[in-house]
C-alpha cells in the first residue's frame, strides 16, 4: 500500500516529526509520496519584495488568493524553489532518497486553466481576468510509480501545468488528494488542526477517520472554513480512488505512524 502524506505549509506545523516518520516508513519498505503546500510563505516573500498578497471573495463567500503573473513568479520561487528543495534535502539527510517535483515536471499535475474569477467587490459581482490557477484533472501516475519502483520518494508540490502550457496555482490539499486517488493510496493530511470536531468546542468529539464517501458526508456537514477545504480534498481523494483518508495532527510525536495505526 502506497502512502501519500500531505504536510502543511502553515508556520505552526513542524515538519521534523513528519520527516522522521516518512524515513521510518520508507525504511520499512513502504512506498511514500510527500506532498506539500506553502501559501503563507508565498505571502511572506511577496511582502519582503514589497508586493501585497491579494485575496478576493467569490459570490458564494469563498475567500481565495488572486494569483496574478507576479504572484505566480513568487509562487514558483517559494514552493518548487525554496520549500521543495529544503524539504527534499531534509528527507535526504534522514536517509530517504527524496526527489522533488512540481506539477509541471513531466506533466505530473495537469488540467484546465482558470484565467478569470468572479469576485465580489463593494457589493458588486465582477469578473477579474489575469488569474493564474487551474483545476487538477490528471496525474502522471506512471512517473510516480516508476520513481517509487526505483526506490525514490517523490516530494511533490504545486504549481500544476495548465492545458495552455502555463504553470498555474492549484490547491496543495487537492493535489495530494489527486495523487492519492491516482495511486489508490492512503492519504494522510497533516495539519495543526487535529481533525474535524463534531462539536467545535469539544475536542472529545473528534472525528478521526473516514474511509467511505458516506462517512465523509457526516464530516462535511460539521466542517467549516479551513477544515472545509481539507474535507473537500478528502472527498475528492476517495472519489478518485484513494483507499482511505486520515486528517491528523502534524505536531503529534509520530504523526504519520499514529495516523496509520488509527490514532488520527
Amino acid at each position, binding site marked *: 500500500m502506497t502512502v501519500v502524506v500531505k504536510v502543511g505549509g502553515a508556520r505552526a506545523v513542524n515538519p521534523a516529526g513528519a520527516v522522521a516518520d516518512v524515513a521510518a516508513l520508507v525504511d520499512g519498505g513502504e512506498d511514500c509520496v510527500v506532498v506539500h503546500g506553502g501559501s503563507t510563505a508565498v505571502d511572506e516573500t511577496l511582502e519582503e519584495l514589497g508586493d501585497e498578497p491579494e485575496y478576493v471573495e467569490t459570490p458564494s463567500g469563498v475567500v*481565495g488568493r488572486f494569483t496574478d503573473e507576479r504572484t505566480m513568479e513568487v509562487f514558483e520561487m517559494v514552493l518548487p524553489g525554496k520549500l521543495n528543495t529544503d524539504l527534499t534535502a531534509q528527507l535526504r539527510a534522514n536517509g530517504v532518497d527524496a526527489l522533488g517535483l512540481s506539477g509541471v515536471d513531466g506533466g505530473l499535475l495537469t488540467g484546465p486553466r482558470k484565467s478569470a474569477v468572479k469576485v465580489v467587490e463593494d457589493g458588486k459581482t*465582477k469578473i477579474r481576468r489575469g488569474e493564474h*490557477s487551474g483545476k487538477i484533472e490528471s496525474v502522471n501516475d506512471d512517473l510516480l510509480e516508476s520513481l517509487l519502483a526505483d526506490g525514490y520518494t517523490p516530494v511533490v508540490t504545486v504549481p500544476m501545468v495548465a492545458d495552455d502550457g502555463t504553470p498555474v496555482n492549484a*490547491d496543495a490539499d487537492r493535489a495530494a488528494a489527486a495523487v492519492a486517488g491516482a495511486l489508490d493510496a492512503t492519504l494522510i493530511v497533516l495539519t495543526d488542526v487535529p481533525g474535524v470536531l463534531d462539536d467545535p468546542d469539544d475536542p472529545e468529539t473528534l472525528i478521526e477517520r473516514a474511509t467511505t464517501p458516506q462517512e465523509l458526508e457526516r464530516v462535511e456537514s460539521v466542517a467549516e472554513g479551513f477544515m472545509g477545504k481539507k474535507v473537500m480534498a478528502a472527498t475528492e481523494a476517495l472519489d478518485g480512488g484513494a483507499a482511505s483518508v486520515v486528517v491528523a495532527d502534524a505536531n503529534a510525536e509520530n504523526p504519520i505512524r499514529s495516523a496509520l495505526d488509527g490514532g488520527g
Partner: protein
Amino acid sequence: MANCPECGAELSLHDDVETGEIIDCGTCGGELEVVATGPVELETAPELEEDWGE
C-alpha cells in the same frame, strides 16, 4: 440603457456601472458581463467554477 445579448430585452443600468461587472438580465435571467461603458456593451458572462489555488 443597453440590450441583453441573449434575449434582446432592454436593461436599465445604474450610473456607476463598471467594466467587468456582472449583471443579471431581469427578463431571461442570463448572466451578462459589462465589457465596455460609455456606451455600455454587454456580453454573455463566461461560466466560471468556484475553485481556488493554494
